[in-house]
């Protein structure tokens, strides 16, 4: 009787006992000592990277030897695969940490000065200290350009997605294939397209508007495609219920389909925006470079954060490079915020968490 009342005991799938853990730690320590003796004392080798690689190699060899002797071949293969996967994940983790950490740390030198956010670069030459001049013009330029791009791509992209999922028809296959194909468009080609058509074809000048058009060309297929995916996830039962109640198709789309898909659409928009905001190459060809704050997207060059970062980083002056890192850190923070926002939106709605 008592066996029935007992909680069923979960089977232990992983056979890792204390001895295994001790073996792991022991191999790591032994590898470290071995590497230190050979690498630093006996062999004519030097350098931190080489040391870490040699340590990892000797640690792996010792650990495999130990496991093989104790457990046999099957477990040995398993432990080797697990070790490789852990090492790869750790390497990726370290790389990401250095990418973000390095940018933020080197950017901090410029970011601690409030004038970085309140001034443009008109008075600050390459030798000017970081306490004067800033990247306000680039920040404002980024916001203006991405706003124009969103204003163009969001309605068009969602309209196209609605067409593909709700209206359909023979032509929709063609539209879908072309949109899908255009997500492969390299961003530099989008920039070149805007450059040739708007600047050379229509004789416009380098301006924020042209840059926004270049970003739009790049973002439009991305947003249209991801919106379509989201709209397709809306259960057709909801549509049919609405139609069965006598609603017109337009009412159904407006009052049922779009509200259901809203969190997913927001995620699609935010991820598209994050992509568009960080692209340098289309802006490089179309926005021009200036050190002045320019609020008018239709006249005069208008610099954005990625472009500012790129131009500053090409300079040999340490202060300009610090400014580049400051702008990159700012851009990174903007993208992080957008990303966190999209996660939050996705977590709120059903259609967003696919």
């Amino acid at each position, binding site marked *: 009787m008592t066996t029935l009342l007992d909680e069923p005991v979960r089977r232990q799938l992983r056979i890792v006992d204390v001895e295994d853990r001790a073996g792991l730690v022991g191999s790591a320590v032994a590898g470290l000592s071995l590497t230190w003796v050979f690498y630093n004392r006996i062999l004519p080798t030097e350098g931190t990277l080489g040391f870490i690689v040699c340590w990892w190699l000797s640690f792996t060899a010792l650990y495999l030897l130990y496991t093989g002797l104790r457990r046999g071949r099957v477990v040995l293969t398993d432990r080797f*695969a697990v070790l490789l996967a852990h090492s790869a*994940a750790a390497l990726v983790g370290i*790389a990401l940490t250095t990418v973000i950490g390095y940018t933020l740390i080197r950017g901090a030198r410029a970011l601690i000065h409030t004038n970085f956010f309140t001034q443009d670069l008109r008075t600050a030459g390459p030798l000017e200290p970081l306490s004067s001049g800033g990247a306000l013009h680039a920040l404002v330029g980024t916001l203006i350009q991405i706003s124009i791009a969103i204003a163009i791509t969001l309605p068009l992209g969602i309209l196209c997605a609605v067409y593909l999922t709700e209206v359909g028809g023979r*032509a929709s296959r063609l539209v879908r294939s*072309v949109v899908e194909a255009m997500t492969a468009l*390299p961003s530099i080609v989008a920039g070149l397209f805007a450059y040739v058509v708007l600047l050379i074809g229509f004789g416009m000048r380098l301006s924020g508007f042209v840059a926004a058009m270049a970003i739009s060309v790049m973002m439009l297929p991305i947003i249209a495609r991801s919106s379509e995916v989201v709209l397709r996830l809306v259960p057709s039962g909801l549509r049919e219920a609405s139609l069965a109640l006598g609603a017109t198709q337009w009412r159904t789309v407006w009052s049922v389909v779009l509200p259901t898909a809203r969190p997913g659409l927001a995620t699609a928009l935010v991820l598209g925006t994050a992509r568009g905001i960080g692209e340098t190459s289309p802006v490089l060809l179309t926005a021009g470079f200036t050190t002045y704050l320019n609020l008018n997207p239709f006249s005069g060059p208008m610099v954005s954060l990625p472009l500012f970062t790129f131009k500053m980083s090409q300079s040999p002056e340490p202060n300009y490079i610090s400014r*580049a890192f400051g702008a990159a850190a700012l851009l990174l923070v903007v993208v992080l915020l957008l990303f966190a926002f999209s996660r939050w939106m996705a977590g709120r709605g059903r259609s967003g968490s696919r």
Partner: protein
Amino acid sequence: MSEPTVDLEPRKLRSSLAPSDLIFRLVARGGGGLVLLITGGIGIFLAYQAKPTLQTYGWKFFTEQSWQPEANQIGVAAILFGTVVVATIAIAISFPLAVATALYITEWAPRGLKKSLVAVVDLMVAVPSIVYGLWGFFLLQPRVIHLSRWITDFFGWIPIFRVDTDPDAAVFDGATYASSAFIAGIVVAMMVMPIACAVMREVFDQTPAGEREAALALGSTSWGVVRAVVLPFGRGGIIGGTMLGLGRALGETIAVVMIVSPLFEINWHVLQSGSITISSMIALRYGEAQGSQLNALMAAGLVLFVITLIVNLIAGFVVARSRSGAGTEI
């Protein structure tokens, strides 16, 4: 008694659309048409602009190495070669990392950590390429040149690892090892790894639990489950994710511009300074280009676009055909 006559014609169902629906459909069709016009227009425009160049130079456009519009010598051989080399290095580095990381996240990561790891990978996709470029130029390059020298030292007898300098020179000649296709490849690898990893992770996650449990019940280890169930199931995702990353690697511009020093000849020595890719060439040369030179740039852009398009189409095809890919969106 005669058979009752039955009318076999089906009843006609007729519905008339409300005026609001007519307008709605019209507007939606218009939107779809406009998007088709814009996106399709780019492709047609590129082809139209590239035509004069391709007509003038013909096959020589693909075999000529130098890019000297003023000397009437234009060809994408070296540029295409550099593009492929950088992308190949990027994929060679990112592929094992992406597969192993995706497997780690689905199979071995602690359960509480899994959600945040997925978010971290998705976040890495969103990090702007200029940030990776800065990281590569200022942090990675000064360190990797030593690795390059080490590889040349020990594997220099393999032609592609050779560098035309004395590796044992009294003064370390760092500049010869800097700005190489190898370093650009590492940076691009960092950029495309998360994209590939995200796709693979999503596919691995869909492995049927029943098959996993069946493998475990037969006594397999966790690696046995991966080898016998997860990898065969996710093969489409692995190939598709890699191709998607390859498409991105081929088109990457700004990080490559920051790292490589332009060299318009086929450079087999990947560790040695100097290379060029199509996208970085466009970024470097658009400013001084006019008229027919712009057409030449458009032709190069068209070549790049066609390549990435083919790669992406294959990726989509492979993922859609695979068992796991039916519900996956890449």
